[in-house]
């Protein structure tokens, strides 16, 4: 008992001593908003004019991992945001951003949504933000079945070796393809199209052992140099990613849409729009997924 009292007293003293010299911290929140070609994202809503065929799509899932968030000082230096360890959405320096709400075709998702990264930084003046879409290598290849939240969502499992889906976007499109010639009805689902981003060509002993490296990490690091956390929002627009893709077809013998795997004819326009090299070909330009408003 006495020991405990002394310990508490010591802690109190230590706290008193350090308070005047401790750097002040600021609670910060980096907000995200999802959209399709400028229209707010909602589960089950139909969006027209998507991709090269100007198809209509009805999304059924939209989630992504954001990690290594840093705030930028005027001099260009980057200060890591210490994410709040909430046991649900954030673990170490990774957060799951979840735009779907389990409604309608998003049934296989979760009711809860999460559209912000929350954490703290040393108080100061910040002019921009840097973030990575993806899970850092050190956390990406553990056994997801026994990982802590949000790294234990089965929906986001890629596979044990390759890690997680950094982006999971699933939709149906209204177009008719040779693969699926019979439309159930004019509005109904015909082609199912997905964009799943993840690391590929990860060398490992077996599918359920962690690899030593991945040839294509496919993590997107994006800097928004003039970004005010209090006023600005990171806009995540899948319409921009699909602009040069044909969402009504799927290259024969490949994953539906683009799931990042090599030799998939559906992938080049998508990976290029994500600003990532694909199959040895560099992206045509900067990423078009993230912007700000």
């Amino acid at each position, binding site marked *: 008992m006495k020991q405990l009292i002394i310990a508490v007293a010591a802690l109190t003293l230590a706290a008193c001593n350090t308070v005047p010299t401790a750097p002040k911290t600021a609670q910060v929140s980096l907000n995200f908003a999802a959209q399709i070609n400028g229209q707010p994202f909602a589960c089950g809503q139909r969006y027209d004019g998507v991709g090269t065929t100007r198809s209509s799509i009805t999304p059924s899932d939209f989630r992504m991992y954001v990690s290594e968030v840093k705030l930028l000082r005027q001099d260009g230096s980057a200060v890591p945001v210490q994410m709040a360890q909430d046991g649900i959405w954030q673990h170490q320096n990774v957060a799951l951003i979840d735009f779907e709400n389990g409604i309608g075709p998003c049934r296989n998702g979760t009711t809860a949504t999460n559209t912000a990264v929350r954490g703290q930084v040393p108080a100061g003046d910040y002019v921009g933000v840097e973030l990575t879409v993806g899970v850092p290598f050190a956390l990406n290849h553990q056994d997801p079945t026994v990982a802590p939240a949000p790294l*234990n969502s*089965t929906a986001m499992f890629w596979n044990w070796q390759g890690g997680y889906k950094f982006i999971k976007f699933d939709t149906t499109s209204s177009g008719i393809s040779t693969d699926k010639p019979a439309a159930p009805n004019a509005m109904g689902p015909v082609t199912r199209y997905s964009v799943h981003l993840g690391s590929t060509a990860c060398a490992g002993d077996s599918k359920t052992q962690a690899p030593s490296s991945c040839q294509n990490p496919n993590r997107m690091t994006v800097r928004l140099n003039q970004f005010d956390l209090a006023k600005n929002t990171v806009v995540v627009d899948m319409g921009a990613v699909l602009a040069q893709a044909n969402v009504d077809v799927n290259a024969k013998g490949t*994953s539906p849409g683009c799931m990042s795997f090599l030799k998939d004819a559906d992938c080049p326009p998508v990976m290029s729009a994500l600003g990532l090299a694909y199959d040895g070909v560099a992206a045509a330009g900067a990423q078009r997924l993230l912007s700000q408003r």
Partner: protein
Amino acid sequence: MKRLPRSLVLWPALVLGWVLLSGSALQAYHWGLPAWVPRPVEPADNPMSAAKVELGRHLFYDQRLSADNSMSCASCHQQDKAFTDGKSLSEGVTKEKGSRSAMSLANVAYLPVLTWANPNLTALEVQALVPLFGEHPVEMGMAGREKELFARLQADARYRELFAKAFPAEANQGAQALYSLSTLTKAIGSFQRSLLSFDSPYDRYQYGGQKDAISASAKRGEALFFGEKMECYHCHGGFTFTDNIRHQKLPLAEQGFHNTGLYNLDGRGAYPANNVGISELTGNPDDMGQFRTPTLRNVALTAPYMHDGSIPTLQQVIREHYAQAGRAGNTPAGPNPMRSSLIAGFEITQQEVNDVVAFLNSLTDESFVKNPKHSDPWGKAPKSK
């Protein structure tokens, strides 16, 4: 520094702790899980206790729970078949067949949503009412006969003791509270939650560090199972091998209903009218043919397969269903246009099929299907007159 003798400080705490724990209601339930498996979530209104599990086990195996004393829960959920019945479609007391195959009860404690095709059935306590009292189809046939049921139970001295131990608070409120649908379903639900299966050869290989616990063929099958050609693990992922899961380390429960393209009766994705999946309940035609992903643990013991038991063997499930982009892909109507995007079909050799089946066989947990704690406590199940 002066110290109090440790024993002086500790003794009162130990005595108090012993007093608290010795009350049966306060005794923490021992799940008996391996260290790597997170614990299931207990319902707030039905925390686990050994006494409830034991009562539930007696009820689960008791044919007095059916109209003509011919059926118990165990009639369709047999331990040696990982709590399935080996039939395509299960029959009730009237011999009327249901439209779906009995599902395994292994690890149901981890399921946020139960049964093949009802997204609203989320609690074992509620689900138990369906086979007991359901009339479409009739299963155990007890609709309108609950008074008779409770009289049967109350007349048995063994139940009087088991109910009183499992529900001491209700016992204090009298017989009506003690022998009720609430206590009955809570006990059966508790027994079902105790049916945990994590001791297969694959577990010893993956989590127990026994590199030789599964064969070379099973290891090749594992690679195919977790690979992008077959895409099995997208739905049959996680430590229960289904994308329907909830546990103490997973704050947001996950559910997975999918159309695997088993049927395409009209070229526009139709399933047989008596088995349209969750669209029967959601009323949404886009949900046609969507059924809940079943666990693959003990799958070698749970034939025949699919929601309607329409495929006899695992070999056929792979070759004649999934490899064809869904079985309908092999019919004139072609692949179901509403099937999951991950059901794309694949080329597969006989050796590869054998390897995947060897992997699936490595998920069989012999200690689970032989665990005496899950077995019939009655010896020969008693019948009422």
